[in-house]
């Protein structure tokens, strides 16, 4: 797999998204130190990118953290309930913006699918993890991953 999407680029994108949309401060998204803890209730938001390169940008974290992310985006109080609708819209939108920026790294014009949110992102046939960034958002675990597959035309080339 050609290094179309680099680690530092994904980190930059993630930090800009969080700084601009959530925190007002790029410093609140940092690399995670050490092993990731298991999530009590894992949840993922993702968006597919298609074109010459087919892939998926996936955000994964614990539901409690995703709820807090939604609260920050929707200006809800710390104790306010986050409905499923709120969560899907807010968490999905973060995945949408991250995915859109990943798409813009690609050499040719691609298109973006609709954001989706579920406990686990389903498998994408033939995809490998291209980048997996283990991050700390306000000190809490948050994973930003990019999966990718080369199109049929590239078959036969080893990545």
């Amino acid at each position: 797999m050609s290094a179309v999407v680099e680690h530092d680029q994904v980190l930059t994108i993630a930090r800009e998204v969080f700084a601009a949309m959530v925190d007002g401060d790029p410093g609140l998204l940092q690399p995670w130190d050490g092993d990731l803890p298991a999530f009590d209730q894992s949840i993922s938001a993702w968006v597919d990118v298609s074109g010459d390169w087919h892939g998926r940008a996936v955000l994964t974290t614990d539901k409690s953290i995703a709820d807090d992310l939604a609260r920050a985006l929707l200006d809800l109080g710390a104790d306010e309930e986050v409905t499923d609708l709120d969560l899907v819209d807010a968490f999905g939108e973060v995945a949408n913006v991250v995915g859109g920026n990943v798409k813009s790294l690609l050499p040719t014009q691609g298109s973006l699918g609709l954001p989706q949110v579920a406990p686990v992102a389903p498998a994408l046939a033939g995809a490998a993890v291209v980048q997996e960034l283990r991050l700390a958002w306000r000190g809490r675990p948050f994973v930003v991953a990019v999966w990718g597959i080369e199109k049929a035309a590239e078959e036969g080339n080893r990545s």
Partner: protein
Amino acid sequence: MRALVIDDSRTMRRIVAGTLHDLGFETVQAEDGRAALDVLESGIDVELCCIDWNMPVMDGLEFVGRVRANPAWRHITLMMITTESEQGQIVRALAAGAHEYLIKPFTADAVRGKLDLLGLVPVKETA
């Protein structure tokens, strides 16, 4: 002044509308280009539209084209706010008649800066 905020994400509409409120705008929201056209056609006076690109039913690019084709809406400033950030996409949007283009993610300062360029922020008072 009133702005029409068009995006299929409620979260994003809230963020954009919030920033515009801070800058002194009233806002109306629509979830796609078709709904946005309905708002304009209903006679609501709007000076600014902030438009996402990728939306169901009618996307932002088509909305821009439709507004620019209607003489009654010539006075409306059209700013796209979108994740589409390839050079070619920005050129397409400007060619379709968008006046400005803001790439997501954006800050409130960035919105203000663009509106400054467009002459849409109230005149500053000096000391």
